[in-house]
């Protein structure tokens, strides 16, 4: 059976190859990309208009033959109109061609920009790594104690290289975090980003004119943030939060941080956050979605991950720390192509277990007395 199915696929492939062989060259040259469809909305009516350069009688009309004969006799009447139409068509065709060239140029530029950004981030990490190799050997004591923010399992610069390799490019993170902007407008004070990483969210906030500062334990990332003009200090986020005066912050956010901490640290962090946030302020804690096997699959890919935190547990900790109006949002769905095609309820259930969203966030509020 399996062999037979292969036969069918193989035959279809042969036919595609043979057809490509007889394809007209100009058709093959511009295979339509998915996002050129809107241009087709222009191209199709133009192609149809070409068929009406001079008046014709559609086949579907009654007495088509007689009408065509009359039409031929009268053709001299609209010679001018016909040339006008033809000229206009040529002009529109020219415009469409110009549009296409523009679009191609824009796409090329966009891909260059993306490549350059990636390259820059990679260079920063590599330079830091080289600096470290040149100055001191990696600490040997890390093998004995368990990993913790104070005692990371990898030298910092190696971790920076790791992040550059395995985490998405900065721009992707930026797009993803745009979701949280709706929660952080009109805060009762500045925002505190615990473990701000490469500072993507702080950059978003700066563009929106929202006051914010960050703390980052990686000196490489913290330096990069400061170089970009962001208010970021290097150090331990929990300690920094503990030093903040009570009710002085509008919000505390921690994206992809708590999975790097033991449960006790997470609770201490939440308690300090509760103390530091003014009434009406909010807390947002995002981590890996433990309900999705696809997300869990990559959990220990990051050697600094300590333990997964299930949504129920994180929600409980937030509640215990004194946050109210708690909600859980699931984010970063897998692309449709990586999920099962949903033809039944069973498929949907399997999808939820196997290919659920990769992250979730608990959002809570400090009640106004």
């Amino acid at each position, binding site marked *: 059976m399996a062999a037979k*199915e292969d*036969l*069918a696929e193989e*035959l*279809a492939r042969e036919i595609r190859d043979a*057809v490509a062989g007889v394809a007209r060259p100009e058709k093959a040259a511009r295979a339509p990309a998915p996002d050129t469809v809107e241009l087709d909305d222009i191209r199709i009516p133009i192609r149809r208009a070409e068929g009406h350069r001079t008046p014709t009688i*559609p086949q*579907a009309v009654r007495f088509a033959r007689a009408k065509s004969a009359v039409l031929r006799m009268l053709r001299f009447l609209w010679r001018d109109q016909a040339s006008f139409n033809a000229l206009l068509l040529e002009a529109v065709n020219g415009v469409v061609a110009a549009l296409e060239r523009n679009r191609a140029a824009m796409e090329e530029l966009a891909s260059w920009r993306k490549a350059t950004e990636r390259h820059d981030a990679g260079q920063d990490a590599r330079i830091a790594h080289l600096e470290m190799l040149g100055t001191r050997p990696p600490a040997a004591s890390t093998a004995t104690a368990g990993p913790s923010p104070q005692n990371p399992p990898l030298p910092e610069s190696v971790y920076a290289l790791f992040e550059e390799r395995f985490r998405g490019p900065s721009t992707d993170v930026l797009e993803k975090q745009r979701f949280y902007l709706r929660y952080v407008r009109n805060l009762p004070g500045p925002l505190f980003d615990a473990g701000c990483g490469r500072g993507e969210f702080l950059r978003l906030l700066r563009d929106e004119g929202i006051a914010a500062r960050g703390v980052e334990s990686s000196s490489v990332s913290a330096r990069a943030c400061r170089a970009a003009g962001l208010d970021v200090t290097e150090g331990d986020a929990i300690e920094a939060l503990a030093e903040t005066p009570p009710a002085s912050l509008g919000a505390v956010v921690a994206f992809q941080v708590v999975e790097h901490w033991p449960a006790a640290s997470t609770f201490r962090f939440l308690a300090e956050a509760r103390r530091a946030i003014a009434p009406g302020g909010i807390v947002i804690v995002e981590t890996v979605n433990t309900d999705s096997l696809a997300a869990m699959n990559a959990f220990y890919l990051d050697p600094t991950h300590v333990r997964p935190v299930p949504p129920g547990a994180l929600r409980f900790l937030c509640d215990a720390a004194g946050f109210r109006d708690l909600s859980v949002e699931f984010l970063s769905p897998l692309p449709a192509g990586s999920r099962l095609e949903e033809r039944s309820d069973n498929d949907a259930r399997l999808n939820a277990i196997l290919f659920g969203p990769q992250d979730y966030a608990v959002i809570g509020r400090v009640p106004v007395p």
Partner: protein
Amino acid sequence: MKKPPRVLVAAVQSPFSGGGAERHVRRLTEELVARGIEADLIQIPLIERERFDLVRSALVWRSLDVTEFGGRAVDAVIATRFPSYAVRHPNKVVWIIHQYRQAYDQFGTPWSDFTASTEDRRTRETIEVIDRLGLSEARRVFANSRTVAARLRKYNGIASEPLYHPPPLAGRYRTGPLGDYALSVGRLEGWKRPDLPLRALAHAEMARLVMVGRGPEEGRLKRLARELGVEARVRWIPAADDETLLDLYAGARLVVVAPEGEDLGYVPLEAFLSGKPVLTTEDAGGPLEFVIDGRTGFVVPPRPEALGAALRLAWERDDALVALGRRGLARASELSWDATIGTLLAAAGLEVP
């Protein structure tokens, strides 16, 4: 005992022609009755003599309020073709077979006789208004296929869901050994492009073709077959009764479907239920919702050489054809009137008794 729900099917009548659309609405009514629903069919012809007749026919539908008959309420109306969905009823579900295509996607092609004249322009605008009004007041809009749903969204901005149904002779199709001919079934008219399979024959010397159907292009096609020198390999069957058609499907090697922008098309489903793979074109529309290249058939560019190459390469590959046909059969067997009727009634807030 609770009385069964009363449902009216609203459809367009084409007197003296009895086409596929009419058989379809009759079947829908029968399937409703078979499930214990008190269903009946109301039909009004669509007059197309003068341009404005289209609008007049729509007005006839619009002036009818079918909320009750004989003192008893009608629980729901299922409207089908333009302009039957202009009918008035508070619980109206539309299952649109297709719009008045000449005013939409076929405009500007040889298949539409609408021109740029003021009268034609106004008529097209009015048709848009009728569609918008009749469809947007419906409780739910279903389309016969994804292709039809996409057109509704593109031209009218109306969201609808595709709702498939089994082909007319469902339950009677039979499979048979691979025969020695490719089969083409359908009216011989322009946009169905019956000339494509004929021209493809010129590129596949071993292939034979059976053309079932008649239509305005018949004479021209026969002339074309002579010019191409393929007439010895073509058999013409202007009209086939059900049994003959079932035999023709069961005995075919594969089935060729080459229309441009077809709404749904029963032919691929009929081919699948007869265990035959389908060769179709990239711009075929509805057929592409079932024919998947390399899974249940072949999809090639709409050119004679391409169809010809596919016929030539596939002709001797019995194992592959059988495998494709088997998967097609499995796919088409998923469609059932039970599911279709269930969806329609649920949309109207009714249940199968």
